[in-house]
Every structure is written in structure tokens, then in C-alpha cells.
């Protein structure tokens, strides 16, 4: 059987490329326009966007809702923290390498067990498995610091070319911000290629109709497992990037409500769209930092937003915006 070659540029119009370049340029120029606090906040948003992008390969493209992706985010974060603690590693590149390896192992173990199931079973199984890691991080306090967590100092970037500076805030809002931005853009690009490759098309076929996909000759379980691996690695990378920014990793990021937050991001942006999780993560990050500052009962407010979203706007921000724009266009042309 020959594979059908689908050009990767399919669906990639000049307009899309122009928009992408424009947004990337805007993100690159941002540190000059706004303060250090805003830049760091945006860096958090971009990191969560990588995690949400990873989750959405499962949720949006494969039709599997994982309620346990905190496991990979936490794996990334703790691998970095443990590399610092036991091997005194400082290089960010080594951190990322270690994280990719570790998340691959965890994703393979979890994925091997969980991709046999779909729907709620898949969700809950993921939840249970991620809780295993949480309880380990929580209980083995002499390794992981327990609920106090582990501190992570600022790393060196690009093999030590950009070293540790005295001004940590300046480092995080400039050198580290660009580091995150470049990795974010790379992740978006890779995910775009994956989603538009024959492999990505096969995942969508599995999502839409499992039986038909099987009859066409797609090996469903293997495809799901590979999607799970990719998804886990993306979220793991996000965790590794998050730690130096936060300076500390605690078991909270392995706890299942954090998994819920990653899902929240995808739903907020609109998991039916490629850009949905990116928009959702960045908006969620702003939303949360604003709500947490505004009221003690931020959790309730976020909960209400989630319920309203799911009830009234199931296509999220991107879907709703698209609908409004389409409507306006039709009204203009009519």
C-alpha cells in the first residue's frame, strides 16, 4: 500500500502565513513596549499554550479527553528540579533533553495502559494515573521536598552562552522570554505540521468514526499511542520551561485540578480549532491572574465562566469570533 502524499502546505494560505509572522513579530517586540511584569506574565501564557497545544492533539484531533495531563507538566518540572538537586545541572538545553526523555517514558507507560479506552474511561484512567505521580511527589519528601517543593535557580541558556545574571527579573523578562518565545513558535510549527500530515488526518478520522477508520486500515491503537506520546512530550516541555520562571515546583502542578485547568484552556479557546488552545491558554493566564487579584473567591468565578462557556459557547473564543466575523462579512456582502 502506498502512502498518499499530502503536501504540507495544504491549508496554508499566504494570508495565514502573513498573520502568523505578524503575530510572532508583535510578540517579539512586546518586551520593548510593556513592563517586565507583563512580559513575564505573557511568558507564562506562552508556556501554558505549549501545554494546551499538546493536550489538544488528543482532545481536539483524536477525540480523547485526558484529565491527567498535569502528570506530564509535573514530570517536566520535577525532572528539571531533580537534575538541579542531584546532578547540579544548569544548562536549559540539558533540562529540555532530560524532560523529553522522561515524558516519553511516562507517556509510554500511561499511554500503553490508557489508549485502550475512550471517553470517560480514558479520562478517569488518566486522572488515576496522574494521581500516582502526585502522591509520590507528595509523600517522598526527602527526594521531592514534599508539599514544600523544590527550588530551581535560573538556568544558563544556549549551552552557557547566556549565563546567570544578578538581575533575575531582567533575565526572565528578556533573555528567558525570547527563549520561551522561540520554543513556543517551534512547538506551534511542529504541531501544525503534525496536524496537517497524513498522521494528523488519520487521527481526525479516528475521532470522527473509529469503525470506519479501522476499515480503511488505520491501526487505531498505535495511532492513539503515538498521539499520546507527542501530546505528553509537548506538555512536558511546557513544564520544564515553567520551572525556572516560577523558581519553585510543588506537587500542586501534579494534582488533578491542574489537569482540569489545562483542559479549561483548550475549551476556553475552542478545542475544535488549531489556534484555540493557544488563545485559550494566554487568555486563561491573564484571566486567572486578574481574578486571583480581584477576589478571594476566584475559583468560583472561574467555575462560573467554565460552566457558561460549556453551556453557551462550546466553540470557545476562536469559534465565537469566527462566527461573528463570518456574520459581519455576510452582512457586508449582502
Amino acid at each position, binding site marked *: 500500500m502506498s502512502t498518499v502524499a499530502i503536501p504540507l502546505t495544504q491549508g496554508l494560505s499566504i494570508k495565514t502565513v502573513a498573520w502568523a509572522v505578524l503575530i510572532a513579530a508583535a510578540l517579539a517586540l512586546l518586551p520593548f513596549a510593556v513592563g517586565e511584569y507583563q512580559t513575564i506574565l505573557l511568558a507564562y501564557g506562552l508556556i501554558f499554550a505549549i501545554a494546551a497545544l499538546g493536550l489538544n492533539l488528543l*482532545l481536539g484531533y483524536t477525540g480523547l*479527553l485526558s*484529565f491527567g495531563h498535569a502528570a506530564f507538566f509535573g514530570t517536566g518540572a520535577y525532572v528539571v528540579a531533580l537534575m538541579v538537586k542531584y546532578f547540579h545541572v544548569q544548562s536549559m538545553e540539558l533540562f529540555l533533553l532530560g524532560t523529553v526523555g522522561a515524558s516519553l517514558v511516562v507517556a509510554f507507560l500511561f499511554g500503553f*495502559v490508557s489508549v*485502550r*479506552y475512550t*471517553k*470517560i*474511561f480514558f*479520562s*478517569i*484512567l488518566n*486522572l*488515576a*494515573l496522574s*494521581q*500516582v505521580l502526585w*502522591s*509520590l511527589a*507528595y*509523600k*517522598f519528601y526527602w527526594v521531592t521536598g514534599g508539599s514544600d517543593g523544590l527550588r530551581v535557580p535560573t538556568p544558563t541558556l544556549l549551552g552557557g552562552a547566556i549565563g546567570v545574571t544578578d538581575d533575575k527579573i531582567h533575565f526572565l523578562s528578556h533573555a528567558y522570554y525570547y527563549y520561551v518565545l522561540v520554543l513556543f513558535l517551534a512547538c506551534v510549527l511542529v504541531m501544525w505540521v503534525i496536524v496537517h500530515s497524513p498522521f494528523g488526518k488519520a487521527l481526525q478520522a479516528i475521532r470522527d468514526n473509529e469503525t470506519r477508520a479501522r476499515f480503511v486500515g488505520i491501526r487505531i491503537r498505535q495511532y492513539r499511542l503515538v498521539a499520546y506520546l507527542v501530546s505528553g512530550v509537548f506538555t512536558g516541555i511546557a513544564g520544564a520551561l515553567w520551572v525556572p520562571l516560577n523558581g519553585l515546583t510543588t506537587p500542586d502542578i501534579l494534582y*488533578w*485540578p491542574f489537569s*482540569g485547568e489545562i*483542559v*479549561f484552556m483548550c*475549551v476556553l479557546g475552542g478545542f475544535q480549532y488549531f489556534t484555540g488552545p493557544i488563545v485559550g491558554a494566554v487568555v486563561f493566564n491573564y484571566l486567572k491572574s486578574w481574578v486571583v487579584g480581584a477576589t*478571594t*473567591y*476566584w*475559583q*468560583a468565578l*472561574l*467555575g*462560573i*465562566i*467554565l*460552566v457558561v462557556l*460549556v*453551556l453557551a459557547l*462550546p466553540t470557545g473564543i476562536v469559534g465565537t469570533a469566527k462566527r461573528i466575523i463570518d456574520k459581519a462579512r455576510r452582512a457586508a456582502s449582502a
Partner: protein
Amino acid sequence: MRIVNLAHGNLYAIGAFVTASLVGNWLAGTRTLILYFLLPAGAFVAAAIGAVLEPTLLRPFYRRAEEYQLLVTFGLLMILEDAVRFIWGPYPLSASTLFSELGSFSIGDAIYPTYNLLVIATGGLAAVFLWAFVYRTRFGLLLRATAQDMRRASALGVNVNRVYVQAFTIGCFMAGLGGAIVVPGQSAVLGMGVEALVLAFIVVVIGGLGSLEGALVGALIVGIFREIGITVFPEIELAMLYLIAAFVLLVRPAGLFGRPA
């Protein structure tokens, strides 16, 4: 009924808080015998909340993919968690008079609180009543029919909406009762809902979704393994429970007593 409610643990917590504030605060000093009869108050409040939640928030989702249910109940969990904090504040609430009043007795060298016997008796009674309700009454028959095939039950004249409300209300009642009955022995704290939910999930996964006897056996397994874990190797006590759940799902996806879907 194939409803997965992530906010179920919060109803357990609400049951605990209601009973604790009623018995431990407002009516503290009343004759303790009366207080024992007031214990289930939390369960009734939880049931009332359930009766409101099902038609308003959950019903719109039966026709949509199951995943949306998880999302909406996750939102509900966040709301209820803060609602409890808003109403009762961040401090633990206790009703320990009921616990200490009964004293304890000893079996050999071990000292055992008498109140726990009451908890065991209540748990056993609740289990028997629930079983009788589901398997020996006309309502239980309609309930099981609706769970098996909602459309057909509806076509045969069952008021499906009413069955759903009633079933959900009973579920919430049981959650509230659980919370209400443990509160004299421990105390009501924030976050107890999430903790209970995760344990309840493990129980149900091990026992099998949609099986009452499974839930009972699962609960006993979890309880016993937890105690063994705490005494023998406390570090992996929780991890072991999750691993048991994952293992059961792997070997018997429907749980020990569940029917394969």
C-alpha cells in the same frame, strides 16, 4: 444513570459542614440525644442541592458527548468549593461532642471509639436501603430501565426526566449522609470534598460503574488497603490505591462487579 459528577465530593463536604454547624455550633448544648437525630440534616441539604442542580445544569448535556459532563461538573466543583468557603469560612468546623460523648471500649489491647460503631451501622443500613430501593421497588425498576435504555424507557411512558432528578437527588443524599456521619469523628475542612471524590472514584472504578455491590466491595478494599498502607509503608499508600484502580481497569475495564459496556 451514566452521570459522572466531579462535584460529588463537594456535596459530601456540604453534608459535613451543614451537620457540623448545626450540631456543633447553633444547637450546641442541646441534649445530645436530639443531636444524634439531627445528624442526617446535612444529607437533606445535599439532596436539595442535587434536586436543583440536575435539571438546571446536567440535563442539557445528556444528548451531548460525555466529555462535556466532565467539564461542566468540574466547573461546578470549583463553584461549590468556594461556596463552602464563602459560607463557612476557611476554618475547620467540628462536632466532636457527639464523638466523645459515646466514649470508647476496648477489645483486648485495642481501644475503639463507640461512635465508629454508629458509623458502621449507618453505612450498613444505608447500603441495605439503597439496594432495596434500586432492586425491590417499582421506582428502582424504572430507574434501571432508564439507565439501560433511556429512549426506550421514555417511549414506554416513563417520565425519564423525573427519574433522573430522583436518582441524582438520592445520589447527593448519600454523599451528604457520608459527610454528615463522619464529621463528629473528624471535622469539616476545606478540600475534604476533593479528597473524598478521588477516593470515591477509586472505589467505583474498582467495584464497577453502575454496580451497588461493587461500590460496597470496592469501598471495603480501599479502606483495608489504606489502613495496611498507612501502617506498613505510608509513602506509597495513596499511590498503591491508584495503581490498584489502574490495574483493575486494565484487567477488567468494567470493574470487579460491573457489566461490560
